[in-house]
């Protein structure tokens, strides 16, 4: 693990890059744009007793969400979908993990959350830490999260979209597609960047270098999830999940890694620019 992330290795250290998707149609249908491989992999982990629970986020309404601790197939499928805000992993997590029946968990989060969990494992500062229970960390690719209120109020001010109407937001290429009341509004991504949290603008990590597995999408392969596997553990589970028929797993062509590297490097440059304003 190196920090800062070297400019010639914007994805950090990794073992291999895969393209994957869920074998199960019903998981794929729940997804927008990606292959549902993370959901299927987590499902494999729960059903094969690799972990007792999965901690992840679920969208409640609009762009807000909540933390869920999923212990069964149904609970996990409920939580599938791209998340648009960083959710405080606080009291709920502490509460869930102090539950004696949970011995091992898999965590799904954004690169910052993965970093904090990894740090917790790397240096257990507190004895009350539950770092021993964290078995597997999945980080999702992240360009940054919006300062929710500022972003929603700008949508209202500029385009007259009421925050309660927003049902989904996702990225297609360089545009942000906002779905509301059966309508769609397309915004160029660079216009929305100022409404991101400053903490995200200074963040250099696109893929989540502090994780076992990073997951995201590639525009060249819609319908597939790009997986960057970083540890022996994740290699093992991916292969096993593929053998047991949970996911379809392919080695990714080189240009996929290049595409992700370009995005990761762009985030590093942005981070450097904003960091000089802060320091």
């Amino acid at each position, binding site marked *: 693990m*190196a920090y800062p992330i070297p400019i010639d290795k914007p994805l950090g250290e990794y073992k291999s890059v895969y393209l994957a998707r869920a074998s199960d149609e019903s998981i794929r249908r729940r997804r927008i744009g990606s292959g549902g491989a993370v959901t299927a992999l987590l499902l494999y982990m729960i059903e094969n007793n690799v972990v007792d629970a999965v901690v992840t986020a679920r969208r409640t309404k609009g762009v807000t969400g909540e933390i869920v601790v999923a212990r069964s197939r149904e609970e996990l499928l409920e939580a599938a979908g791209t998340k648009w805000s960083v959710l405080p992993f606080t009291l709920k997590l502490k509460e869930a993990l102090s539950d004696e029946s949970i011995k091992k968990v898999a965590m799904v989060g954004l690169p910052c959350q993965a970093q904090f969990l990894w740090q917790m494992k790397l240096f257990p500062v507190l004895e009350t830490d539950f770092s021993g229970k964290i078995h597997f960390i999945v980080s999702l690719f992240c360009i940054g999260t919006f300062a929710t209120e500022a972003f929603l109020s700008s949508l209202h001010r500029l385009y007259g979209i009421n925050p309660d109407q927003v049902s989904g937001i996702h990225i297609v290429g360089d545009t942000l597609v906002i779905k509301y009341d059966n309508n769609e509004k397309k915004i160029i991504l660079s216009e929305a960047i100022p409404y991101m949290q*400053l*903490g995200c603008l200074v963040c250099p990590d696109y893929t989540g270098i502090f994780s076992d597995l990073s997951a995201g999408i590639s525009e060249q392969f819609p319908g597939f999830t790009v997986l960057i596997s970083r540890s022996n553990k994740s290699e093992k589970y991916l292969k096993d999940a593929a053998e047991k028929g949970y996911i379809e797993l392919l080695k990714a062509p080189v240009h996929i890694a290049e595409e992700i590297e370009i995005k990761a490097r762009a985030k590093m440059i942005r981070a450097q620019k904003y960091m000089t304003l802060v320091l």
Partner: protein
Amino acid sequence: MEHKPSILVYDLGGCEGCPLSILRVYPELKEIADLYTHHLGEIDLDKEYDVAVITGPICINEPEDIDILKKIRSRVRTLIAYGSCASVGGITLFCRGGQEPRPEHRTFQPISAIVNVDYAIPGCPPAPNLFIALVNSLRGGRGYFLQLFASVARAKRLSGFDLLDNIVLTGLCISCGACIISCPTNALQMIDRKPDLIVEKCIRCGTCCVRCPRFTQVLIQKYVLKKEVI
């Protein structure tokens, strides 16, 4: 460091939580390092050690302790401040003189006020396993762990107050909640999706700062990388 390192643990005083936390992993520790501490018998300060680990703060009204600290610094290659008091001041920063049981002790400082410290590790006290992680990192020689704690040694002071000033009030906070989970005294609470400090509860241990994904990034950028650029 390929051989088994010899480690001197020297306690400057305080609540003894840090030496105790180290002793608790002694069975595992003796496999990977040779440990020398008061708690295991006599120690010889004239001997040379690979690493010295100092626990407890330095009282700058105590010339004897200052001399010992300087002597240890001159004898070892790597000096580590272990625990909040030694690394960032901790609760002893609240001492203001004239207080029982030792009214002549007026000002306590992190040991980096007196000598150069290579790595400073906060925690009140750091969990026993942290010491194992530390020894393994030292033997590895580099990596994120050492980089972060080298920057803490240069920052000298970290607390909930610094977290608020440097991260929350500058707008760098991303509301991940790492600080709130980390606080040993529950001095931080989430208000409107941002952490807020209950000042009376903060013991200035610095745990929240080394857990925050943004603060660690700022620390490394500010203290470790800048030096390399110059």
